[in-house]
């Protein structure tokens, strides 16, 4: 009985090891949760150029609009001033 057990146990263990070795490797798990930006594929990364261009374009447009508005107000005030000075001189 003892001899049978001593023979059977190693045989069973070897069979189990052989079975486990033959099993296919588990599939690579797709990452869940947060993924670092550097690991994202190129197609999913946010492009920087449109944002940079939009920022610079806004700065230029804002400054140009403000300068144009200043110029318009200044012209109107100078015209009004010239008109008033003429009226004051006539009196």
């Amino acid at each position, binding site marked *: 009985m003892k001899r049978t057990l001593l023979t059977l146990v190693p045989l069973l263990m070897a069979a189990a090891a052989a079975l486990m070795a033959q099993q296919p490797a588990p599939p690579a798990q797709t990452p869940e949760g947060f993924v670092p930006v550097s690991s994202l594929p190129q197609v999913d990364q946010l492009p920087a150029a449109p944002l*940079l261009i939009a920022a610079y374009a806004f700065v230029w447009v804002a400054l140009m609009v403000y300068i144009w508005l*200043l110029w318009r107000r200044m012209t109107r005030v100078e015209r009004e001033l010239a008109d008033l000075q003429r009226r004051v001189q006539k009196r």
Partner: protein
Amino acid sequence: MSRVFVPLVFLVMALFAAAPFVVANAPYEQTMGLVQKVFYYHVPSAMLMFISAFVCGIASAVYLFRRSPAADRLAVAAGELVVLFGLIVLVTGPLWARKAWGVWWEWDAKLTSALLLWMIFLAYMLVRRFGGPGSEKLAAAMALFGMANVPFVYVASMYWRTLHPAPTVVPTLKPGMRSTFWFCVLAFMLLYLLLLTIRKRLEDRQAVVEQLYLALEE
């Protein structure tokens, strides 16, 4: 004034014409890459927003305590420029943040206090425009309050947990970035002087118009 003014106009135009090329030649930042170049317009605009807030606040204090009409006119000019440069900061910042942080906006101490500062001076301009006679003193008090807010905006990223980089980034810039940054700061500073001068002159001329109307009524 015209002896300095016209050369200043040409100088500013030349600096701003050269600025895009200078920025394009600046080195890329290691982690943020191309979008980091918003820094060269965003930070000088923020500096001018703060400087203009101080000019407006100090001029308002002089108006309140010394009743100086010239100081009041300077305060109006500076207040308007706080709104202009603040708007530039609040638009360019989120465009940079979208790429750097993944979000357009974050309600942290730095961004929220900067928005509040801008809104205070926007309210200042609305009071000056629509407040009617006697609103100059109320507006001047608002400008003082706005000026007091500036140090909090500046130190917000140093003493509170924010996504926004601390001002200590500037001294650590590498040579290629440092020269580009200071070039843009110079261009913006001279532009600010120009705009402040023109805007103050507009207020001065408007004051003369009002005096002439009063003279005509007498």
